[in-house]
């Protein structure tokens, strides 16, 4: 673990940026991260907490003490499955899931490689698939993910079963794909 210097330069700006983003996008849930008093209820209900080096309450604490950079490099923010149980149960109404998502977006904007390689590969393969066809083609998503992650036989037993159940389409459906490609380009290049 990194040795934490208290309140490194620029950290106030990071906290302000997180609070401001959440207040603009989701004002009904706007309670700043400072109001968290570390009861740990978010972590108690988190389905992925046992997979995180910093579970949700510690991520919030890192933000509170100005260690946003540590949070941005954590596995925890990427293991979060956005189930929103944390935010729902927070007695202080801190939008914890919103903070987790904001940290993921900030990590990407700053070019910080997601610390959870598998989840990132899966999500990026998903988006490439949608960018190509306009809709998700599930068999191709799993195929590409397995190749990139080198988990070649992950769920290999499921393919034939799903095929026999008529649950796997053989060909992708393309929908408005030229416009979707333009949409992706504009959105990802926008400042």
């Amino acid at each position, binding site marked *: 673990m990194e040795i934490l210097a208290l309140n490194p330069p620029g950290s106030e700006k990071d906290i302000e940026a997180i609070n401001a983003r959440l207040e603009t996008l989701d004002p009904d849930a706007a309670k700043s991260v400072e109001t968290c008093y570390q009861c740990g209820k978010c972590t108690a209900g988190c*389905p992925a907490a046992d997979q995180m080096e910093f579970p949700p309450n510690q991520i919030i604490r890192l933000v509170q003490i100005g260690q946003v950079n540590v949070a941005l490099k954590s596995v925890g923010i990427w293991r979060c499955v956005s189930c929103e149980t944390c935010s729902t149960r927070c007695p202080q109404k801190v939008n914890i899931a919103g903070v987790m998502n904001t940290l993921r977006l900030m990590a990407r904007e700053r070019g910080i490689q997601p610390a959870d390689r598998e989840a990132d590969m899966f999500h990026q393969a998903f988006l490439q698939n949608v960018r190509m066809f306009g809709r998700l083609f599930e068999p191709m998503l799993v195929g590409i993910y397995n190749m990139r992650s080198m988990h070649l036989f992950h769920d290999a037993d499921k393919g034939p079963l799903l095929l026999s159940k008529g649950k796997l389409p053989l060909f992708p459906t393309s*929908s408005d794909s030229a416009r979707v490609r333009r*949409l992706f380009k504009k959105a990802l290049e926008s400042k």
Partner: protein
Amino acid sequence: MTYAYYPGCSLEGTAGDYNESTQAVCRALGVPLKEVPDWVCCGTTPAHETNQLLVTSLGVKNLASARSVSDKVVVPCAACYNRLKSANYEISHDKALKAKALNAAEVSYDGDAQVLHVIELLVREIGLEKLKAAVKKPLKGLAVASYYGCLLVRPERIMKFDDAEDPQTMDQVVAAVGGDVVDWPGKVDCCGASAAIPHTETVLKQVNQILTDAKACGADVVAVACPLCQNNLDLRQLDIRKKIGKDHNIPILYITQLVGLALGLSASELALQKLVVDATPVLKAKGVL
């Protein structure tokens, strides 16, 4: 009135049974659905954790297209429902984001397409009384645990679907079609969602607990309203048997399949053959099929 219908990507693939049963139920109840023209993926988790403008733009594109058909759009997938409703919420609060999203999606849209989950269609649009009146084969004696998962009910401030900790809407549908409502603690637990592929162990742990709870409370079957939940609860029973050594063998049906059975539709019309854990034995034993 005609409702716009947004099936979403999963309903063209692993959740084909949800698509078939939703359409069959709507036909049987005389509710006209018209597919949203040129609908595209809602972006779901991969998009919302990658780029805010991307995910809002995908939502807005679909909503504008739905609006060309009707001012109400019916969405069976809980993930799509959550995303489209969130897009409406986001553009109502963040005007700069709205302008950029309309530009990227090449549409004009003012947030006026109302997003309805198929359960809301049944309860709030068609109404439980009308649904009850249409029942031909009540699901008498079938104990159904309604599993809501995350995305239908959370965040409550945006979804406004039902209480986020103890929702009742799906249970009301089960009761209306004559099923026995199971009172159980797992209805809003997370199944592990899209961790199913990159981190299967999270899903196995969650699903094992959810199914253990459902069975301990006497459920014969679990009702779901989300393709991701269905796949995780149904298909992953195979992995739980292999890796945890527990054989749950409990059928996981879409709520629309259960409603369809009560309306007298056939197993093939409701695509029951697509379920991994065969529902036929318990449905026959209870005289539902």
